């Protein structure tokens, strides 16, 4: 069904010559990495699946503008990052306030007060993970995406800048602001542990 032995460039040449099926090989090859980054950015399985589909669809439609010198994996990865960013930007409006409430420092205190009484360590780590996720959710879409790319995907500032369509310095600033906010939000937690 798929000609997996072909490299990306050969597949792209075949697609542009009218062989639609050759795109299957590219989809199979890159879907997993796209899903990984989409899930890390959106934090939601259904959204991540939508992002993968949308990115691959956009990629196919823009394939004529793809420069053959570039790496298809990097190119489609950037498209997926943009799609994921669009997705979290569009839903940010109604979720932002809820996340802010959940991570209210007073609430953190209430949740963690019981831990000094010796609750199960697993419960504690589960709560920490939930607070970390909430803190991540409270970042702006650009900060969250930049942080995920830097911290979890190990991408350089230049790569983040290219993926987000901003200047490298702005990408550095976005990562820095994200780290600053996360440390601030998680500071009460650190003191109590």
């Amino acid at each position: 069904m798929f000609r997996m032995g072909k490299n990306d460039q050969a597949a792209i040449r075949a697609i542009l010559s009218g062989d639609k099926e050759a795109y299957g090989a590219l989809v199979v090859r890159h879907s997993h990495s796209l899903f990984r980054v989409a899930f890390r950015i959106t934090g939601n399985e259904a959204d991540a699946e939508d992002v993968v589909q949308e990115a691959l669809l956009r990629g196919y439609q823009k394939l004529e503008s793809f420069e053959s010198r570039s790496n298809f994996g990097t190119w489609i990865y950037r498209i997926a990052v943009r799609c994921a960013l669009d997705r979290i930007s569009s839903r940010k409006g109604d979720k932002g306030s809820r996340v802010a409430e959940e991570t209210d420092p007073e609430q953190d205190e209430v949740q963690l007060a019981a831990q000094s009484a010796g609750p199960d360590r697993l419960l504690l780590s589960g709560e920490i993970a939930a607070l970390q996720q909430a803190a991540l959710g409270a970042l702006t879409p650009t900060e969250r995406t930049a942080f995920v790319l830097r911290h979890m995907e190990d991408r350089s500032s230049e790569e983040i800048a290219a993926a987000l369509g901003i200047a490298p310095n702005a990408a550095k600033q976005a990562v820095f602001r994200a780290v600053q906010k996360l440390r601030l939000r998680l500071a009460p937690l650190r003191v109590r542990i």
Partner: protein
Amino acid sequence: MKHLKEEELVEHYYSQSQSQSQGPDEGEGVAADHLASCAACAADFAALRSDLGEFPAVEPPVRDAAYGEQVWESLRNALPAYEKPKRRWLGVGLGKSLSYAAACGLLAACAFVAGRQWERKQVQTASVRPPQQTQLAPAHPQQRVVVVVLSDHLERSERLLVQLKHADADSEETISPLRDQARVLLAANRICRQDANKADDPELAPALDRLDHVLAQLANHPGPLSAAEITRLQDELKASGLLFEVRVLRTRIPEHRTAARANGGTI
């Protein structure tokens, strides 16, 4: 001694982790030297490293080996095949290219002159004709307006479907505005459907039918929708893949617009 800023410490932290896999960075050496000689900055850096070290990478849910093929199956039918590349402009030869360019220029000049004269003649005729005849609009601008309406309609429909997909089924405050939007979109959808049926578009017409079904359920339900009904609608939406279909159609619209202009055909 000038201390490192927090921003520089963050940059150094990530440069360090990256240099392990991609080789050392230029600025890293300066920051490392300073950290080796400054206890205050070293303490700040240790705290930063501890905080970021406790922030694990989110592990996505496992996807099996067939995931890529599943994605491909869901995309395959939505992708039109590219046309084989035609002979290149320069491949024909410079002389021929120039003669084509000259011929095109001449044709454009003739069309311009003829257009101007026709326009003058129309103005003269219009002043003599009764008013109802002068109000007739040419066919093509009308077609172009339909394309704009359709793309706008699909964009608004997509937005509504996304909101419905993520809506809290128990919240009447969230659902009520969606129902108002659905009523407006329902009317527009019927116009677009009629147009798609006339044009006999095999992809657009059925998709608009399915969209009509969802919009009608949302808009015309007597009384408030219960949480169970909203959940059922959300499940239906997920199972039918309508949202994705609308997205695909949206991306096709510019193609159609070009085709309509070039061929003078309908949408």
